[in-house]
């Protein structure tokens, strides 16, 4: 059967079980949009800016565990995706990015709306394809989904020239075979590596697990808990590892890093064996590398061999899928108890709790997160932007299950919260809470129309202090309070909500805030809540840039 390139592409998406594509049309993808009508089972969600398409696909992927799909036209459409692609790349999010390009005979000749998007995205995709024949679309798409969703997951871009969408080719079903010689999937760890790791853990007196997003990507929360319980190992997470272990678990201690809990940073720094699981010993998590816990033995379990030994010398490297590695490790661990070590951490936690809630008269961001946690029972899927509100959400929201915490960690993309919440909401029916900063919100607020189009029940909780808060904090602490370009002017957000035809609420006191949260929960459809939070509030504790974890500072008296 002969099909056009556009039909073949949509056949492939159907075969992959893709139900939702976030996209924006344009000149060279017109043949594809002309074909969408023949595939009513593939929903196209029209965003208002291509960056949002990428973030929405990312949010969808993080909540659902499936591969997110976004689509844009050539040139500016494709380049607008770049921030979203890089965000997904840094956080290992499975995503297939589809772009059109100018017709084949115009490629390389600077035609209208031509951009070398495969060249541009070389360093921010796991792989990319420029498909030059309709007959090659199916194999490229098959491989793209395979690469995006296996190993260390990540975005893969498929670029298709306009006339390839129109060209016909024989379609004899979605390819079964993948021939990727340069992509051997090693998911099963070497047994002697696992034994070496078990030896170190069994000999430990003060072990700690640093759990990262790899645990979530691998679906290995149960295995993580089993290992921690058997060997009595406290679990600290990275920022992206939050929700990999339920907050209420007795061995769960919260997250470490620049704004991690004081006791978590000190515990990681005092441990004799540090077991990194599905994490990459990032600078924001570990502080100054050379002064991180010099005496510790490091066990590192990761799917990506290039992460092992990248930042730290590793004493027991285990390369493989986190779930498989933990299942292999479990029987080799001796049941253990570390009462003194646990008591030491518990005392530290009691003496240095993270409980900066401010005065009763102030609507602080910290208090607001706690109120949100209370009103949602800790059950909501939380999407955040980047900055102070993100850190408070990480510190104070008690996450119960994996994939409940959606945030841009590696790239730190402001404005992520508005479109990512759209993707998240397409992957679940319970309302998503998007915790926004007033800076980031103004970067992507055009997507409120997309939200309105689909009447998505997203609750946008705008932490509005009128400041670019995190930058202001740094200017205050490290640049002599020389505030510059952080005092953000803003529109009347209630009028904005009204203009988009969505519910708007405002709160400036704690009582009003609680009422607003409850009122928002009763709304059938999208809500924007303008929380007028304390103008000047800092995130504590904090590891100053370039300092070691042991130099974590708490709020000055």
């Amino acid at each position, binding site marked *: 059967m002969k099909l056009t390139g556009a039909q073949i592409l949509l056949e492939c998406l159907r075969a992959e079980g893709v139900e939702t594509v976030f996209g924006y049309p344009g000149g060279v993808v017109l043949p594809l949009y002309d074909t969408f009508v023949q595939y009513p089972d593939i929903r196209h969600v029209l965003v208002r800016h291509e960056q949002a398409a990428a973030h929405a696909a990312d949010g969808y992927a993080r909540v659902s565990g499936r591969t997110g799909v976004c689509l844009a036209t050539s040139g500016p459409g494709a380049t607008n995706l770049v921030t979203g692609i890089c965000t997904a790349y840094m956080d290992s999010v499975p995503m297939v990015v589809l772009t059109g390009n100018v017709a084949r005979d115009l490629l390389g000749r600077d035609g209208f709306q031509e951009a070398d998007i495969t060249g541009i995205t*070389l360093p921010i995709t796991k*792989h990319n394809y420029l498909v030059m024949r309709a007959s090659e679309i199916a194999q490229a798409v098959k491989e793209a*989904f395979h690469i995006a*969703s296996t190993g260390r997951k990540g975005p893969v871009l498929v670029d298709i020239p306009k006339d390839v969408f129109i060209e016909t080719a024989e379609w004899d079903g979605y390819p079964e075979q*993948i021939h990727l010689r*340069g992509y051997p999937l090693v998911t099963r760890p070497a047994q002697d590596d696992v034994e070496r790791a078990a030896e170190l853990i069994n000999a430990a007196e003060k072990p700690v697990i640093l759990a990262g997003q790899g645990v979530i990507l691998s679906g290995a929360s149960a295995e993580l808990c089993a290992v921690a319980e058997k060997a009595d190992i406290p679990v600290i997470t990275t920022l992206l590892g939050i929700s990999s272990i339920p907050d209420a678990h007795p061995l769960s201690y919260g997250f470490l890093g620049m704004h991690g809990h004081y006791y978590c940073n000190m515990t990681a720094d005092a441990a004799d064996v540090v077991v990194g699981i599905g994490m990459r010993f990032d600078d924001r998590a570990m502080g100054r590398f050379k002064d991180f816990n010099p005496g510790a033995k490091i066990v590192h379990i990761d799917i990506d061999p290039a992460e*092992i*030994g990248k930042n730290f010398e590793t004493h027991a490297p285990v390369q493989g899928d986190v779930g498989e590695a933990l299942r292999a490790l479990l029987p080799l661990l001796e049941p253990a108890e570390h009462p003194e070590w646990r008591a030491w951490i518990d005392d530290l936690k009691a003496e240095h709790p993270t409980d900066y809630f401010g005065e009763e008269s102030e609507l602080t961001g910290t208090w607001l997160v706690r109120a949100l946690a209370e009103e949602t029972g800790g059950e909501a899927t939380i999407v955040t932007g980047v900055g102070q509100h993100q850190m408070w959400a990480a510190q104070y929201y008690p996450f119960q299950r994996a994939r409940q915490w959606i945030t841009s960690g590696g790239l730190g993309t402001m404005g992520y919260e508005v479109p990512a919440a759209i993707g998240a909401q397409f992957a679940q029916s319970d309302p998503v809470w998007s915790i926004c900063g007033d800076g980031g919100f103004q970067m992507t607020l055009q997507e409120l129309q997309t939200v309105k189009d689909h009447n*998505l029940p997203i609750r946008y909780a705008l932490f509005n202090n009128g400041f670019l808060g995190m930058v202001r904090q740094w200017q205050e602490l490290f640049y002599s309070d020389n505030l510059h370009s952080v005092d953000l002017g803003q529109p009347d957000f209630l009028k904005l909500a009204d203009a988009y035809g969505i519910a708007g609420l405002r709160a400036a006191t704690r009582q009003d805030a609680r009422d607003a949260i409850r009122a928002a929960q009763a709304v059938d459809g999208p809500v924007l809540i303008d929380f007028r939070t304390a103008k000047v509030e800092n995130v504590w504790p904090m590891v100053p840039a370039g300092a070691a974890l042991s130099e974590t500072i708490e709020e000055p008296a």
Partner: protein
Amino acid sequence: MSEYSTIVAHVEDRPGVLARVASLFRRRGFNIESLTVGKADEPGLSRMTIVVEGGAANVQQVARQLFKLIDVVSVVDISDQPVIDREMSLIKVSCQPAQLVEVGELVKAFRADIVDVGPQSIIVQVLGDGAKVEALEGMLRPYGVLEMVRTGRVAMVRGQRTSKPPPVSVDAQEAEAARAQLGRRPEGALPFASD
């Protein structure tokens, strides 16, 4: 004096592969001393010999990052192995007819060849390891080196051992199992909020 390591990589012979490799080196801040590419003995593959600045820890990171590229089929670090390494150089030397015999003797001593003779200049072709090429260049310099081109290094491990990629896995059953398990979306329908 910087330390150098040598990597042999086999890559898919496709458009854009060199750009991927070069992009990776640039982005990760690895300095390439030399990079040579040519067809490998196996059809469809190219063989790269990459000389990179840095010692064992650095080259391990280079090799691992390189291997993450989908188009890179194999990466072997041959730095600590006995190897034959060669590069070729063409050196255009200013040479009057009267100097030809003298220069010819010098070239012969290096087992190099004069491959072009012009009225005012000659081209010398020299094959050997980097030190030999540099030594000859030094000897020719007094006559006036007008232009020089070096191919960069190619290398091969001595003895039986090869740096070639392993044969394609023939364990079809295992490959099938991996495909069934990986890259599949989780089962079950997702609810749509706006349905």
